[in-house]
């Protein structure tokens, strides 16, 4: 393709940390181009100091999420054609997290909250006991499976106004994980988990805005998971299992 005939994209990329500004780049348009392709092109051809994060490039690792034209997206699987507006792309770091530099957000608070929500599996058997047989058709397993495909990308967390307004709120991903474990019959940590879900930063903060559900690239539904936690914590409270 000759240079003159090439279609170009006007890209504005966030530079700096908490304080910074958008920097303009012109990037050639390609077929089936993803937003991550655009960022990589800039880093390879225009400015090698651009900081951003990615690993798998195929929607598995969850490390490439950024804000694209105002909305959080997994950039490796977001086609430019889907998000471009008037030939323009504005790319920034994920919201609701500290910015390390340029497009790299600090995910530490996101994962800290995952821990606070007791989002880790607590085994009920030791390795010396026989494996528990779980029917994939059972209602509990299906509820656990519905929430399990999370890749920790932080898109939902960046789209949640409740996270924005109350910094202690665990956010959709951590609570979605909690709900998956609450439904896992092999897990032995549910009392602590439900107590965490009912605590200050927990599920009752959620206003069911559904921005998380609308934007989750894996098509998960944290709103429904959190609604499940709201009901389950209420039952546990009425039964006197949590205070």
């Amino acid at each position, binding site marked *: 393709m000759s240079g003159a005939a090439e279609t170009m994209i006007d890209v504005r990329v*966030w530079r700096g940390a*908490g*304080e*910074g*500004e*958008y920097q303009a780049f012109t990037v050639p348009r390609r077929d089936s181009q993803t937003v991550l392709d655009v960022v990589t092109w800039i880093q390879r051809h225009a400015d090698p100091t651009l900081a951003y994060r990615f690993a798998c490039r195929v929607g598995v690792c969850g490390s490439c999420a950024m*804000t694209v*034209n*105002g*909305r*959080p997206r997994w950039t490796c699987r977001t086609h430019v054609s889907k998000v471009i507006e008037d030939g323009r792309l*504005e790319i*920034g*770091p*994920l*919201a*609701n997290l500290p*910015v390390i530099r340029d497009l790299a957000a600090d995910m530490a608070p996101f994962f800290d909250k995952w821990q606070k929500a007791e989002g880790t599996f607590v085994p009920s058997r030791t390795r010396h006991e026989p494996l528990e047989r779980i029917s994939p058709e059972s209602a509990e397993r299906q509820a656990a499976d519905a929430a399990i495909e999370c890749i920790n990308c932080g898109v939902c967390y*960046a*789209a949640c*106004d409740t996270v924005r307004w109350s910094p202690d709120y665990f956010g959709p991903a951590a609570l979605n994980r909690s709900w998956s474990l609450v439904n896992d019959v092999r897990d032995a940590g549910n009392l602590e988990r439900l107590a965490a879900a009912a605590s200050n930063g927990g599920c009752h903060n959620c*206003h*069911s*805005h*559904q*921005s998380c*559900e*609308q*934007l989750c690239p894996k098509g998960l*539904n944290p*709103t*429904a998971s959190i*609604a499940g936690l*709201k*009901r389950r914590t209420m039952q546990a409270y009425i039964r006197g299992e949590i205070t």
Partner: protein
Amino acid sequence: MSARPHTTGYRGDRLWLAAMVHRVSGVLLAAFLPLHFLVLGLALEGEAQLDGFLHWTKSPLVKFAETGLVLLLAIHLLGGIRLLVIENMPWREGQKRMATLAAAAAVGIAGIFLIALL
């Protein structure tokens, strides 16, 4: 130079708007409540005061304002039912349609009220 990256483009999406309209209707209703109590209080001060006020409410402007009030009540009620359904019933697809329907129904209710009033 802009100090912060733009990250709130999802605001204005239909379900986000539904949540905000619901919230604003609640705030406005709460702001109206003291006024409502004030009028009820007039009744305690005697028939004449209350009648005087009720006469004033026949003016078109007040009728219009009352329609607004009915609209707010309908929005807040239907929005509340929508949330109860989301949080307590099995998940259903078509959330955006549900929000639009609730909004349309609220406007419909207020419209019927206005016609009945005129």
